[in-house]
């Protein structure tokens, strides 16, 4: 099994596990009903380490899982995670990731980017969900939660050898 395939399978498995945790155990630590998006943090890490191809495929696969477990239309989360994975993957090899500052900044930007895409989808496709009102309290709580967790998750994910920076052929 090639290293790229291993990276894809590992990242997809981890994000899928994060999504299941988000729908079950993480609701015990929700702040005003808002939970962190662990899947997004893992996706950002995978994208800046392994590039667009691995990240967009993992993002799509786990987005579909999230759609199955949510009231969202099939393809909603898949679309968002594919775009985030692809865009962040374009920065592969060009960002020096220190232990704290970069994980925090990358996660803040990813949370805002996710909110923007989701609001655009809600508006353009008339999806029955929170639209631009997502730019209110819940978004900031989620961003705070993600920001606090990002350095820890980045440190943990850095231990996986298979997620070390990619070779060029699968970019």
């Amino acid at each position, binding site marked *: 099994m090639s290293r790229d395939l291993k990276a894809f399978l590992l990242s997809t498995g981890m994000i899928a596990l994060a999504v*299941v945790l988000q729908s*079950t*155990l993480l609701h015990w630590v929700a702040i005003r009903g808002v939970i962190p998006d662990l899947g997004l943090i893992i996706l950002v890490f995978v994208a800046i380490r392994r590039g667009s191809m691995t990240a967009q495929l993992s993002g799509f696969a786990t987005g579909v899982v999230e*759609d199955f477990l949510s009231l969202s239309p099939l393809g909603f989360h898949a679309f968002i995670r594919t775009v985030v994975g*692809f865009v962040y*993957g374009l920065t592969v090899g060009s960002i020096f990731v220190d232990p704290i500052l970069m994980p925090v900044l990358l996660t803040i930007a990813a949370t805002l980017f996710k909110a923007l895409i989701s609001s655009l989808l809600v508006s353009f496709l008339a999806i029955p*969900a929170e639209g631009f009102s*997502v730019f209110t309290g*819940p978004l900031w709580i989620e961003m705070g939660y993600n920001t606090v967790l990002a350095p820890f998750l980045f440190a943990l994910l850095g231990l996986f050898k298979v997620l070390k920076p990619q070779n060029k052929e699968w970019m």
Partner: protein
Amino acid sequence: MPGIPSFVRKNKNGVTFTAILLLCLLLMLFSNRNLVLQPKKVGQSFFSVFQLSVHAVGNWFTNTVTSIRELKRLRSELEEARDRLMEYERVSRDLAELRRENRELRDQLGFARGLPFRYIAAQVIARDPSNQFSTITVNRGSIHGMREGMPVIAFQGGLQGLVGRVVLVGLSSSMVQPITDPNSYVAARLQSSRFDGLVAGSQGGADLLTMSYVKKLAVNEVQYGELVITSGMGQLFPEGIHIGRVREMTAKGYEASLELEVQPIVDFSRLEFVYIIDTEKR
């Protein structure tokens, strides 16, 4: 056309990205809450197995850790319960008398008795993995007799409160759309003043409801804290289930109706057990 394969090879990344996005858009266009495609049902059934497993493991740990603390608490509660039992025995005697009186009055007035529906008890096993939607997943599915559209209620604070309705039924689990969802609408009535309206979930993530289309002449009769119940119109929800209490009232000069802010009876963050009403079996 020899150019296409080489173009695809050169732009593998971009081509994959575009193909996935098109697939996502197609899926979204053909899938919504009212017309959920079969793959969504199959996927929900499959992945909810993982939710069930994680929920069970989490429960086991919680139960073990809290059991010791529980024992101490239970002892003191036992003493309290004994005292309460004495009180309840007295209340029970009064209640029997009130029931008899109530039955007689009902018979005299010729009112039909409330229809006792069959309930399916269920446990909340998961919620929505994202913060933009508000799904509740319960551990009962089609094999337990669940059907789409069934109303869901819960008992909290001594009152029976409306939770929502079943929107997607898997094999052994189902998804419930709570009444706080912005896309949920319930035909409602103010219990004391008897004005009708429409209760909807409110935007912004707060667990509050908005009751609109209430006649403006109700402004002097509606009281803060008044109970809002289902009216039974639309036939989605049976009549008389508690929805919430009036918290705020807005009467805009240019509008012909009132808008009421309603605090739900059910605290959705503490929701553990729910009852699904089978309106077809009485």
